[in-house]
């Protein structure tokens, strides 16, 4: 491995990782000690879901890149790959919830896990064939098996091509990624129905899967753009991060910002206009108290502000501006995620948000250490692609 290529991660020694993991453990446990078991699992699930969405976003972009083979994805590919390599970690991190079964974890979070509640609720009774503990666990394992299986194959073929230069591997990746993308959409739809939609088990919405996939795409694109623009003048990105690529990334964030607004508005407008009691309660719960201000804040700051900034060519040309927009979107994604998920929990509006934030930081510490560790294990750029001129990199 070229030492230079990972130099931007140079400061990350073993102690650094150790400290981060300890901090993560402490942060995850604090809500438990201060606010009790139920609150712990709620906050933990919130943190887990946010970071899982980043892993899945990276996985989705890996698939998309291998299908389209656009040059915009090349400098980002290794970031996407490191991101999807964290999926096994995310699998393990859900186990405390899953294995709790009827005693804790699942029991604290999901109303449909309570046999007495289900007995007295005609709607939940009908959902038992889908919403039951064994089937939920089987599906959980199945989703992760599919995701991890596909991502391992793609990552292996990508690294193998760096080593051997065998170009048939590129076709192999494309041939796996195209059906992989189809599977990705299907599994994500069911996964978020299981883990998030069923927190409010009476409610349903058919756009939900697409809404989440678009949201995680936006989070991930903002994150990798922030990473690359932050290191834009360091090797190996120096000289590679051209205005053209910056514009492409900016346009991708712009497109995803618009798609996020499109899917969010579609869902809201259709439910609001019909005003059916079984559906509209979802939004009523989210408009309670300060919720409506948070909602309005995301409309203004997650749609209008980045939208207007990203329309300008100047923003998309300048790494520092793009970095600002990306970080801004990331921050708003956390707020929006909170607005979507936290009202689903059984607790008073706006209570104990600090616990959610701490758990988010804790799981984030695990995720980031895994991501940086995995990123450092290979070159930051895929050397297999002839479009990345080696000589230019060496003479830059």
């Amino acid at each position: 491995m070229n030492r230079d290529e990972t130099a931007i991660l140079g400061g990350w020694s073993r102690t650094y990782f150790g400290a981060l993991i300890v901090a993560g453990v402490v942060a995850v446990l604090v809500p438990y000690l201060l606010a009790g078991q139920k609150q712990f699992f709620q906050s933990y699930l919130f943190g887990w879901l946010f970071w899982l969405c980043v892993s899945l976003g990276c996985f989705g972009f890996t698939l998309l890149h291998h299908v389209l083979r656009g040059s915009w994805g090349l400098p980002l590919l290794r970031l996407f790959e490191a991101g999807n390599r964290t999926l096994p970690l995310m699998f393990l991190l859900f186990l405390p919830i899953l294995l709790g079964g009827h005693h804790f974890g699942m029991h604290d979070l999901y109303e449909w896990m309570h046999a007495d509640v289900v007995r007295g609720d005609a709607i939940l009774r009908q959902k038992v064939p889908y919403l039951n503990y064994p089937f939920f666990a089987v599906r959980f394992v199945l989703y992760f098996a599919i995701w991890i299986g596909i991502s391992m194959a793609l990552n292996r073929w990508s690294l193998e091509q760096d080593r051997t230069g065998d170009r048939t591997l590129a076709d192999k990746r494309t041939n796996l990624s195209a059906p992989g993308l189809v599977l990705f959409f299907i599994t994500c739809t069911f996964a978020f129905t299981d883990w998030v939609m069923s927190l409010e088990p009476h409610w349903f919405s058919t756009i939900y899967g697409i809404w989440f996939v678009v949201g995680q795409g936006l989070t991930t694109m903002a994150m990798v753009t922030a990473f690359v623009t932050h290191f834009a003048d360091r090797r190996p990105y120096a000289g590679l991060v051209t205005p053209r690529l910056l514009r492409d990334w900016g346009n991708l964030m712009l497109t995803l910002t618009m798609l996020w607004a499109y899917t969010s508005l579609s869902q809201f407008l259709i439910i609001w206009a019909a005003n059916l009691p079984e559906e509209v309660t979802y939004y009523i719960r989210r408009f309670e108290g300060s919720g409506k201000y948070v909602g309005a804040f995301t409309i203004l700051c997650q749609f209008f502000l980045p939208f207007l900034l990203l329309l300008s060519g100047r923003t998309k040309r300048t790494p520092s501006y793009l970095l600002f927009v990306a970080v801004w979107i990331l921050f708003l994604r956390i707020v929006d995620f909170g607005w979507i998920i936290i009202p689903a929990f059984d607790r008073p509006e706006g209570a104990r948000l600090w616990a959610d934030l701490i758990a988010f930081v804790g799981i984030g510490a695990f995720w980031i250490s895994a991501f940086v560790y995995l990123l450092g294990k290979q070159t930051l750029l895929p050397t297999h692609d002839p479009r990345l001129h080696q000589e230019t990199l060496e003479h830059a």
Partner: protein
Amino acid sequence: MESKTTALKPETAEDPAEGRLIEGNQTYKSLDETIGSIVLSTKPPRAWIVVVGLAFLLVNMLLTTIGYLLYKGVGIWGINIPSGWGQDIINFVWWIGIGHAGTLISAILLLMRQQWRNSINRFAEAMTIFAVVCAGLYPLLHTGRPWLAYWMFPYPNVLGMWPQFRSPLIWDVFAVSTYMTVSALFWFIGLIPDFATLRDRARSRIAQVAYGALALGWTGSAKHWFRYETAYLILAGLSTPLVLSVHTIVSFDFAVSLVPGFHATIFPPYFVAGAVFAGFAMVLTLALPIRALYGLKHLITEKHLDWMAKIMLTTGLIVFYGYMTELFYGWYSANKYEQFLVYNRLYGPYNYLYYALLFCNGVAPQILWWNKARRHVITLFIVSMFINVGMWLERFVIIPMSLTRDFLPSSWGYYTPTEWDWSMFLGTIGLFLFLMFMFIKFVPMINIFEMKDLLHKLAGDHHGNGHDGNGHGTAAAAAHPVPATVTAAQPHNGAEQNRSGDGR
């Protein structure tokens, strides 16, 4: 930043392994002749006369239907209570959807710098306009008193009437009329340089005057090109949201209501994907025979077919995903009306249409996963026909199937289209074909100057001149043909070649 070396190669349009965008020994002159002669030659091929004759008969049938409809009223159709929307709305949505391929190809693919759009965009844009014309007839006549249609516009009046802005049907008025205006403008502006080419090449006085008037005094000066490019890019920017907005609003016509089968949050993205799906199927349905008829295989190459097939496959999968989510969440909702909807689709009186829909849009397009099928003309044609039928069935499944069996069994009904429904539908197909074939006869159906530009770029790539693509062949390029052959202009970039242009 700009001065630093780019480590990424500039995108190249051609991948030797994937086929070419222009085939054969083409020069600027040969392009002028191949495309221009279709318009300027006096004798159209026999097939053209046959199709136009047939289409003309159907147009007369349409006019007869409309005449009788205005005399008698909308009762001549099969619509009833509870199914107040029948073929009139099915066909409206069907035609509007078909138009979307044109806008996607001309606007979005232009912004994405996808060069493969060049030989099919003009054709698809024309299709958009004619499809919107056919679509517009339906809601207009469905109002029953089309002479009062201007009431739908918010103009200052003394009637004390104001449109109901909360109704998506009024949004439709704005969405569709904007769509028509922008598409027509986009199409016409794109045609100006080609009208000038035809003006310069026409031999008959009438053609010279007609094309001369349409060319708006185009001389091909640098200033003209500069303004043209700017205007075209602005229009592309304006058209892009239309690809999403028009069919989204059409989907709101259904989704904001309470009817099970209409009211689903997935509708907006699923309608948009369905529109693009239907549009590409119609482009192929028309382009494949016309390509054979006029010998345009060198310009609409296998690579174009492959790309269109890939887009059809992708959008088809999204549409199918929509059907499946409706089924799953219909059950998952545990709402009895939603669950009945699932039951009614699978076992109700129209269930055979639902299964036909699943076959046409869900199963048949899966053959496009195979490379060979995507380049095989007959397979593609058959798949496109399945999709044309499937997209019509989809709207039938959504509209009458939901309306005839909604909440109270006592108010259920049945919907059967009458002969006047069918004569109207066939009539609009006739109108569409008639307009399409008139377009083919009088307007260059492939963009001549964009093809020259593409030829120039491909040739420039080969000679390493680093052309940036702004050096268009002017309208007068035919006067001094540049022998730029593309056969020799394949770049050699190996297997990891950028297959998708740039994927933006």
